[in-house]
């Protein structure tokens, strides 16, 4: 039985329907403009990579999109639901994996998953079956009754990912999902994401691992200093880079080349000149 039909019976979303629709999303902390008029549109079944240097505004953007940070301006719709107007309905269809797996350290992994299932009001039998399967998949079943305080960072991350999948979300937000995971688990997560996307789930993930973004994502958005610099597939990004005119062979460039060019090519050139003496 394929993974998706067992774990995630996602509603039949059409690939072209808009699942994430961010309009003029802005966040200001005092004098600091963290996110500036962000417009993003992500369709059903799409894996969208959100890239940017440290402090570019990725996590702030995600927090606004999932309704845990109130925007200074702008609005977000998830599957047509306005996050500000109907946050509970919006949150019911998303799964979220934060950049740091801070979880209740006095609960066991099993208790934590059951707690999350309760919050999403998943029927008991179904929740237990799914939790068991997810724990088994992440190789945590034999440690499911240990308190999370004794888990390593990577193990906690796996528990959090499992909790985000428990209720069959339509949209999955992941902030640096593979940080702290061993290669096998990282591969597993990538496989899961691909499977989810094929089932129509929208995956929105921020990452610093450009190789993952290049190989997995249908489209990527690059943000810097709160502003969206470019968005699209690799060809779209190459066009944007070519338009800047700084790259000699944009058609042969990798995502890493494009990222550096778009976010700080001149700075890197300075560093390079300095290193060369």
């Amino acid at each position, binding site marked *: 039985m394929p993974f998706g039909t*067992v774990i995630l019976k996602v509603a039949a979303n059409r690939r072209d329907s808009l699942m994430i629709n961010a309009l003029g999303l802005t966040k200001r902390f005092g004098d600091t403009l963290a996110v500036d008029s962000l417009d993003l549109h992500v369709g059903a079944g799409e894996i969208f990579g959100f890239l940017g240097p440290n402090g570019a505004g990725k996590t702030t953007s995600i927090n606004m999109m999932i309704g845990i940070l*109130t925007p200074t301006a702008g609005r977000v719709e998830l599957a047509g639901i306005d996050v500000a107007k109907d946050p509970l309905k919006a949150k019911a269809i998303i799964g979220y994996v934060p950049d740091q797996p801070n979880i209740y*350290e006095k609960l066991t992994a*099993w208790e934590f998953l059951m707690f999350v299932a309760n919050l999403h009001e998943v029927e008991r039998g179904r929740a237990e079956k799914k939790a068991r399967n997810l724990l088994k*998949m992440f190789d945590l079943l*034999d440690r*499911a009754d240990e308190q999370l305080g004794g888990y390593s960072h990577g193990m906690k991350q796996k528990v959090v990912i499992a909790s985000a999948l428990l209720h069959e979300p339509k949209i999955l937000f992941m902030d640096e999902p593979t940080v702290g995971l061993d290669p096998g688990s990282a591969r597993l997560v990538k496989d899961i994401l691909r499977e989810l996307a094929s089932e129509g789930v929208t995956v929105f993930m921020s990452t610093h691992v450009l190789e993952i973004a290049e190989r997995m994502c249908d489209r990527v958005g690059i943000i810097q200093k709160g502003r969206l610099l470019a968005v699209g597939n690799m060809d779209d990004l190459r066009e944007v880079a070519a338009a800047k005119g700084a790259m000699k062979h944009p058609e042969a460039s990798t995502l890493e080349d494009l990222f550096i060019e778009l976010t700080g090519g001149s700075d890197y050139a300075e560093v390079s000149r300095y290193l060369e003496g």
Partner: protein
Amino acid sequence: MDKTFLILSVELRQAFRGTRGESEKSSQGKRIARNALGYLALISLAIFVGTSVYNIAAALSDTLAAYPDMVRAVWLNLMSGLSLGVFVRLFMTGISVVYQALYDSGDLKFLLSTPTPVGSVVGAKLTVALVRNLAALVPFMYPIWVGYGAGSRAPFSFYFMSILAILLAALLFTAVTAIFAMIVMRNVPTQKMRQVIMIGSLVVGFMFVLATQVLSAKMTRSNGLDATALAQAAQGWGLGRTWYLPHVWVVKTAFLTTPGFGFSLWESLFPLAVAAIGAFVGAIGLSANAFVTGWSAAGDVETGKSGAMRRRRTRKGTGEKAICCELADDAESEMPDTMIRRHTGQGWGIFAKDLTIIKRQPIIWYSILVAIVASGFYLYNMSYGARSGDVGAIPDIMKDVILFVLVMMSTISSGQIAGMCISMDGESLWLLRSMPIDPGTYFNAKMALAVMPGATVFTVLALAMALIPDIPQYPLYLSLPVGYAAISMLGALEVMSDAMRPNFSLRMSGASGTQNQKDPGKSLISLGISMAGTFVLGAAFAFNNYYSHLGFSEGMSRQAAILVGTIAFATIVVAGHAIARSLALASIKRILRGESN
């Protein structure tokens, strides 16, 4: 040494800037006001304690004015007991303070990776632990010495010597504990060590509470806390004669410059200072060989294999094929039944999750235990009074006093839970925020958590009280509903208070480095709500006992006064609930939407 001071300066800067982090957008003015309020409460407490001791000292001096040697002997013994109390107090909280400073600080990994000698790092961390221990000690202990000094006209140098003695006692304790911890940490796994430390210090603390309660009960039987009773009790202890014990050095150091006591430097300050400084230097010296190994062990992940759900290890799923195969193999293994899944729904989930976490916090059960013991002694003393025939003189108001003392004890005992029931979610705030949680359901779950422990304690106490004959008390069919109503309103106020000013840096698990498990400000607010709230509710309910002394109601009949009191009580309860719910819900909505950190 320079690096020790450098680390210390950073620690101090962090302490002054607070622990709430960048995400909190609280203004500086608010922070200063909050700190000022906390300090004001501490100063008020210190003044209260100091004044009380001053009165006792003055009374004792007057009563025994013709026998100055006897007065000195009495005070020497009393202060020996107090010095012992200094160490007991340190046992109650100091061990975990030292352990956390040495092995749980989040910055240790960074500091040890720099070219800083281990001794400098440990020296700085020990100094931080010393300051924390002193902060827990001085506001409660020093006012007693000051009260005595003022009451018995001690020389000015006494005030300096007594604080020096407390400082050296704390230094000695901190350093010896550090040596002990460093030796043990090399051999004992972290989780077990934590349990040993926690349970050990709790047992000592509990014994201390028990001993003070026994003394209190004994005093009650000796017609209360008068100067003669104190003197008789103190002379029986003879604690000052054991010259080789550190608490004796402490008391002799404090009295070193006070005329009439005649202690020499060699039996007081010298051994205390040498032991304290020697232990501190010894701890730093030992750290070069013992600290890093122990600290590494502290970071190990517990990989015990006991438990109800040990299974054969599943093979690693590293590909799509493996995923499919593993997922097809479902529903085979049995999972343990957890309280969380016993019922469905968000409210139950949140309540059961909180209860599961609290169940695993020994410190919370300890405070409930202490409250029950204190209340038990209160009942014991009351029963003695009843049997001795004193109750004939007790007016009707005693029924109300007893009822509301039980209410107060119950709410204080559960204050640690009710007063931080929302803050405790800081551990995983992102999770709750990203979930479709209805604020009303969340509030109800927190209310259940806030009220349940207090109501349980109250039920136990009320039932125990009902078994004691001749005590003036209301029948259970009246006392239980009144008590539950009062406890639920006070619980609502505590939830409201925590929702309006949550401290999400609190960590119930105490895990992950420098995060706090306690918030003294929150404890004080919780205590204030319990005491002031009980007073207001009790005053309303007991109106029929004093209405004739008030101008506006002196012509009222007793029946009318009972009706007015009952209505006033019910109104306060209902209004308190309504206000608390409304304000708490507004705050909870902000918290869940990410508008408040």
